[in-house]
Structures are given as structure tokens and as C-alpha cells.
């Protein structure tokens, strides 16, 4: 693989993120304006006219660059609208970074937005092209698809279903506890484990609290060349690695796939770490924001990231390894679980937490001097997905 990456060539110098939630009073336009205004106000060295180009990630909240250029009344700037399922926000960031690294632009903005709560339906909606009606994705919902990890994982590793349930509950409990410390999170209270385990069933053994929050929100980032970063802030965050993998959906057709891993994640982690020079993720990563769309997803991701041995994540989770005070804090902002999951915004929301933590601005959930953060964003379902991983850090590299 000749994925050379752009380590230390670009940096984030400003970010914004709206509160996530069921924002009945906010339109998609409002969310975009709010996130961009917050970002610009927090980055006084960047004038809006300085931003040369925009990338907008959204799953279904508008098409084309006009979705951004109209509400922001942009002055005839290039706006690229990208979509890559739930990784759409990360995809806008990745492409924006490449645009700066290529030298095409000096200053760009990556934006992500989703307005989910205008539909009146539960969960995510898909805009599928006309079909023959035979694809299971057409009927099976996302929680159902991810719930299939649970029996498969228990069968593969001989894990007692009760212990598996405990681990799933612990993931939900931890992410809600983290979200309780986050003023922008959709859910901001600690949820007792008994409540998690007695909530209504959604799919398989997944209950309401095993599922990420369905919400509205937007987030954005300003990206410049690394050597220019200190003109705008004393504490830029440098981009060390960016990887995106779209799998051949092998797991959906190959009996060898056992629903206890995401091969796409394994590959994107390996790629991003190689670009960033990370050889021992457990020691070199200070915090990880991962795609905890459902509690079994976070469990399997711990193994795919290399944070846990195969078949051991459930034990590490119950041991508290990934809590704020654990050996490797995961989803310190509450994750998709309690921060909420406005699809196109989520990838940038993960980077927003990395931004806050690495700059010491994470308030009550601030970790002790973190230096390197990993964000992971997944789109699709087990066996058929895209996976994005970024690694960002505080240290200015030498490869510029």
C-alpha cells in the first residue's frame, strides 16, 4: 500500500460545534450558520473572506454545495458536498486537508451537518435508488444489523451472554457518564445500569440505551498549512494520519466473515497509524473518539483498533480500561451514544473533542496532558462498510 499520507503538512486552527439534540427550533441552515459563526468567533485571526474553499459532509440534509453557500451567503467560493454514509463529516475533513496539502488553497473549511429530527421517523432514513427489493439493507434497520455482532461474538469466543450484556451496558453507562460532563451533549445525565438494562428492546438484545442518539447538529474546522498554523493560534492541532477504506462488502457474501470484527476498520487503523508513525497504539494514543453507534460496535472496535486482544474487549471494558480515568479513555465527550449522532456532523464532532482535549479546553472531562488523539468514523454495517481513521496531535512535525 502506497498510502503516503500528509503527516504534519496541515493543521486545524479553529473549530466550532453546535449543541447536538432534538433541536426542533433549528433548521439545517441555522445549524450551519451557528457552527461556522462559533468557529470564526473563536478564531479571530481568520476572517471569513480568508477561507478559500469549503467541503460539506452530509448524508441527506441537502445536496450540492448550495446547501452551504446559500445560507452562509458565500462570495462565489468553491463548495464540495461529499457523502460517505455516517463517515460523511470525516470525509469532508479528509478532502479539505488534501486540498491544503496539495497547495491548491491556503485556508479551507470542512463542515458537517445533519437535520434528522424533521422526518417524524425513528432512527436514520436512507434514500435508496429504485431496486428489485431484495437487499436486506432495505428492510433491516441499523440497530438490527449491528445487533448481529452480539450472538456472533458470544459464539465465537464462548463469552457468556450475561457477561456480554454487562459489557454492552458498561459501554452505554460510561458514554452517558462522559456525556454528563459535556454541555453540548444531547444526553447529559448519568444513566443507572438498571435503567439501561430495562429499557425497551430495539433489535436483538439492543435496548434503547444501546443505541446512539438520533439528533440534529453541525460542526466545522478551519484547516491551513502546518507552517502557517501559528499565525492563527498558539495551539494548533496537527494532522498526522488520514485513512479511508471502502470495503468490497465481503462480509455480506463470505461465510468466512464471522461478525466479530470490521476488516475495513482494521485496515484503516493500520494505514493511519503507519502515516502517523504510531507503532504501539495502546501507548501512543492518548484518547480515542470511536464510532459507538451501538454498544457492541464500540466493543468490537476496541479489538479492531488494537486496544484489546481478540476476544478480550468485553473484559477490558468491564475493567474500566476505557473510562476517563482508565488506561486509554474512549469517547470522553460521550460519543455518538450521548453526544448524539447527526450523521454528517459526527466525524467533525469527534475531531472537535480531540481539538478541545489536546488544547486543554475540555472542562470537567479534561484528560491530563494528552498529546495524540485518534478519531474513528464508520459508515454502513457489519460486513459492508466504509471506515475512516484520523490521528491528530499537538506536536509540530518535521516533515513539512
Amino acid at each position, binding site marked *: 500500500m502506497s498510502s503516503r499520507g500528509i503527516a504534519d503538512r496541515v493543521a486545524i486552527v479553529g473549530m466550532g460545534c453546535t449543541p447536538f439534540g432534538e433541536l426542533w427550533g433549528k433548521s439545517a441552515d441555522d445549524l450551519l450558520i451557528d457552527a461556522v459563526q462559533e468557529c470564526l468567533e473563536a478564531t479571530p485571526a481568520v476572517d471569513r473572506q480568508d477561507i478559500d474553499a469549503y467541503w460539506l459532509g452530509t448524508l441527506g440534509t441537502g445536496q450540492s454545495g448550495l446547501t452551504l453557500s446559500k445560507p452562509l451567503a458565500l462570495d462565489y467560493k468553491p463548495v464540495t458536498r461529499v457523502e460517505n454514509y455516517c463517515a460523511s463529516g470525516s470525509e469532508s475533513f479528509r478532502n479539505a486537508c488534501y486540498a491544503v496539502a496539495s497547495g491548491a488553497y491556503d485556508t479551507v473549511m470542512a463542515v458537517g451537518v445533519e437535520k434528522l429530527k424533521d422526518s*417524524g*421517523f*425513528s*432512527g436514520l*432514513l436512507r434514500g*435508496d435508488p*429504485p*431496486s*428489485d*427489493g*431484495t437487499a*436486506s439493507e*432495505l*428492510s*433491516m*434497520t441499523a*440497530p*438490527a*444489523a449491528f*445487533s*448481529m*455482532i452480539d*450472538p*456472533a461474538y458470544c*459464539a465465537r469466543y464462548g463469552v457468556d451472554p450475561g457477561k456480554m450484556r454487562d459489557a454492552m451496558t458498561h459501554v452505554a453507562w460510561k458514554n452517558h457518564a462522559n456525556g454528563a460532563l459535556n454541555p453540548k451533549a444531547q444526553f447529559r445525565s448519568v444513566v443507572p445500569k438498571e435503567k439501561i438494562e430495562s429499557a425497551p*428492546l*430495539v*433489535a*436483538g438484545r439492543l435496548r434503547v440505551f444501546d443505541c446512539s442518539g438520533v439528533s440534529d447538529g453541525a460542526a466545522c474546522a478551519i484547516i491551513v498549512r502546518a507552517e502557517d498554523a501559528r499565525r492563527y493560534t498558539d495551539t494548533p492541532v496537527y494532522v498526522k494520519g488520514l485513512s479511508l477504506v471502502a470495503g*468490497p*462488502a*465481503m462480509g*455480506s*457474501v*463470505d*461465510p468466512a*466473515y*464471522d*461478525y466479530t470484527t470490521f476488516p475495513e476498520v482494521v485496515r484503516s487503523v493500520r494505514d493511519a497509524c503507519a502515516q502517523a508513525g504510531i507503532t504501539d497504539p495502546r501507548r501512543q494514543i492518548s484518547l480515542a473518539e470511536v464510532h459507538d453507534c451501538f454498544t457492541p460496535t464500540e466493543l468490537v472496535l476496541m479489538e479492531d483498533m488494537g486496544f484489546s486482544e481478540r476476544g478480550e474487549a468485553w473484559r477490558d471494558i468491564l475493567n474500566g480500561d476505557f473510562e476517563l480515568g482508565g488506561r486509554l479513555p474512549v469517547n470522553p465527550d460521550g460519543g455518538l451514544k450521548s453526544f448524539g449522532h447527526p450523521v454528517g456532523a459526527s466525524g467533525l464532532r469527534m475531531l472537535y473533542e480531540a481539538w478541545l482535549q489536546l488544547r486543554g479546553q475540555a472542562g470537567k472531562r479534561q484528560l491530563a496532558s494528552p498529546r495524540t488523539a485518534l478519531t474513528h468514523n464508520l459508515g454502513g454495517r457489519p*460486513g459492508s462498510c466504509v471506515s475512516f481513521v484520523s490521528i491528530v496531535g499537538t506536536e509540530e512535525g518535521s516533515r513539512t
Partner: protein
Amino acid sequence: MSAGLLAYASYLPRHRLSREELGAALGTAAGRGNRVAASFDEDSTTMAVEAARSVLATVAGPLPSPDVYFATTSPAYLDKTNAAAIHVALGLDGTGFAADLAGSARSGLAAWRAAAASGGLAVLADVRTGLPGSADERGGGDGAAAFLFGEGDPIARVVGAASRTAEVLDRWRPPGRDHADAWEERFGADSYLPLIRQVAAEVLAAAGLDAADHVVLTSPNTAVSKRAASLVKGTLSTGGTPIGHSGAADAGLALAAVLDTAGADQTILLLSAADGCDALLLRTTGELARRRQPAPLAGQLAGGTRVPYATYLSWRGLLAREAPRRPEPDRPAAPPSARGEQWKFAFTGTRCTKCGFTHLPPARVCRRCAAVDQMAPARLADSPGTIATYTVDRLAFSPSPPLLDAVVDFDGGGRYALEIADADADELAVGTRVGLVFRRLYTSGGVHNYFWKARPVQPGQHPRGGSNEQ
């Protein structure tokens, strides 16, 4: 009539409605026992496919594509030939004729006569719906039977036939309604009884017989069907409908039940009184004992699981239930359905001729070895499989929530995520064995989304239901 009967099979849906529960719910006397009920995802087309699959499975070796004559009083479509979907679902090659004979109980006999006259497959299937509290609701039944006629060693030959036609307002239903009206049953019975005696006497006399070994009599008229055991007697057995009036399938199911037990070189007199009366006289051969359907009708009838009355009513559209807060699915689109005809209707994928990897749905580029356009078709509709993982989706739209889904790995290669049919969640586990059944996933915009589902198979059970004893 020239062609011999080569094979037969019946199909009964798995669900049973308790008449005692029905009576208790409505505060009426509904009798005892169970009514055989098609599931929410079954219709006359899907049940016809299942019965016909069983028939074709009993015939050794490749067959020339038989003509298909499909009879029903509950067609899934009008203006569009339902037998076409049946034809494709059976994996037939499209070179044959396929037509519907739809509308009345007598359509079943029409399909039978057409196939017997020129060879081909007669498939008789019906879903009989009655209003809550009606005789049709408690006394009817849903099911299918299929008969293959052609050259070769027959299991039985048609040795005589006779018919009478009469215009009798005994049972009728205007188009667009799914439940029938009937006149006072004694009026119809008095109209039919002389005709039954006439055709029976005529066909026996022509064959030089005083009586047949086996006699079965079916009729939509309940006063006639109640007297099936006494009107025309057989020397060895006399009977009627096995599951209650089942429309165009009734006579076929009754005949299948006799063929399950009849001996060699015996005569079977089939009488069907509907808008006249038809008699068919068959003589069995020594082949019958070797080529009976694998799962006898009595065994199919003895199995089954209870469906709550309220659930049954919602399946028939007689009790509207609140749907999950999810959008209804889009209707299947015609061009992709046509391009994927062999996939959607016949469950035919592709297998890479370079590396042997099986692709469901069909693929042009091998996902294992990346060979391009090196594929051969692979029909897996009759391949058993094993559940790799599964779930119960309580959020998804379904005509009968919750939706059960499983990832199925087929014996000999191939994986696909399928909906589960005819099972509760507690019947599913990693490792559960399944077979495929042809079902209607949902109907949207007036278009039925036909596709295949996986159904758990118990050890010793025939993949399409009933016990496997010979």
C-alpha cells in the same frame, strides 16, 4: 386426456387458528380444532410455488420446461399472469406456457384438465378469507396442491371424466371483495346432489365399474361437503376436503390425501361440485408407492403452530395495527426486477468459474479472486443452510412486526442475509439449520415484493413443512 400423472404434492402453511379461541373472542360457537391459515407473507402465488417445488423435487433428472396452469380464487394480481412468477421461481427456463385460471373453485379442475390433456404442471392454491364470525373464516382453509402430467411411467392414469354445468347462485363474490356470499346452503345442496349422482354413475359405467376403490367429494357448498362420506361410497375409502373449503385448491388437496395412501392398481373417483359437477376417475400404478410426495398431507396437517386470532385478523387486513415510526418501503422497480429476474424469483446467484466463490446476489467481478465476467449461474433455492448470526428487528417496517433476520451460509458456499419465515425468535440460534421458502416480503404501491426467506428446519422435517416419514 392423454398424459399420465407423474407426481403430486400438497403444501399447507404452518399457522393454525384455534376455533375455540376464535369463538371466545367473538362470543360465538365456532367449533373445535384448528383452521389452517396462510401467514402474512404467503399468498396463492407463494403457496403454489412451494407445492410445485415439492412436485419437481420428486421427479428425478432434468425436465423439459413444463407448461404451468395456475388455479386460484385469490389471485395476487389481476391483469398480470401470476403463473409467470411461479414459473420463474421454480427455476423453469421460460420456454413453456404459463397461465392463470382464476376465479372459482372450478378453476382448480380446469387447471387439472388442461395439464392432464397436454402435459404440464397444474398448481392449485388459495387463501380463503371470511369476515370475522363467518363460516368461511372458521371452516375454510388455506393451502396448495400441484400435479405434474407428462410422458413416462405414471403414478396414476386418468381413465374417465364426466361433467355437468348448472347456473346456481350458491356462492359468489363481486370483484374487489375478499370474502364470499352464499345462499342458504340447502338450496345449493339440492341443486348439486342430482348432478353428483349423475356424473359418478356416468364415469363408473363408462369404465365398467360398480364402484371406485376411493371416492373423494369436495364442494364450496358446506351441506354437500358435510355429506362427502355418505353420498357416493368407495369400496376402500370415502372422504372429502382435508382442511375445509380451500377454493380452487380443495379438490387437489383431497386428491393428494388419497394418493398419499392409495395402493397400486386402485381406482380413485374425484367429485367436485361447484357450478355443476365434475368427475375424474384415476387408476393408480405400481409406481405410486415409490413416488409419493415426501411429506404426506396428514403429517403436514398434524404439524403447525398456533397464531393468535388478533394476529390473524391483522394479517388479513381485518384489524388495523399501528405501524412502527418507520417509512414504508418503496415498491420494487420493474427494470431492476426484470434484470434480476433469476435472482429475485429463482434465487440464482453466480459462482466464479476460476475460484469457485459463490456470489449472492449475482456479481460480475469475483470478490475473492477479482476475475471479471467468469461466472456461471448457481441456483441455491433448494440448498439448505446454517444461520451465522441473527436478530429480531423491532424497529423495522414489517407487515407483521417484529422482523426476524438471519445471515445464512449455504451448504456448498454462498451467504445472504434473509428474513426469517414461520418462526419465533426463540427458534433461532447461531447454527440453526434453514431451508428457503418463496414469500411476499411486503406490498407497496400495489406491487408485491416477492423474494425468498429462510425457514428453520427441524431434524427429520421436510424443508417445506410436515414430517418426512414415507
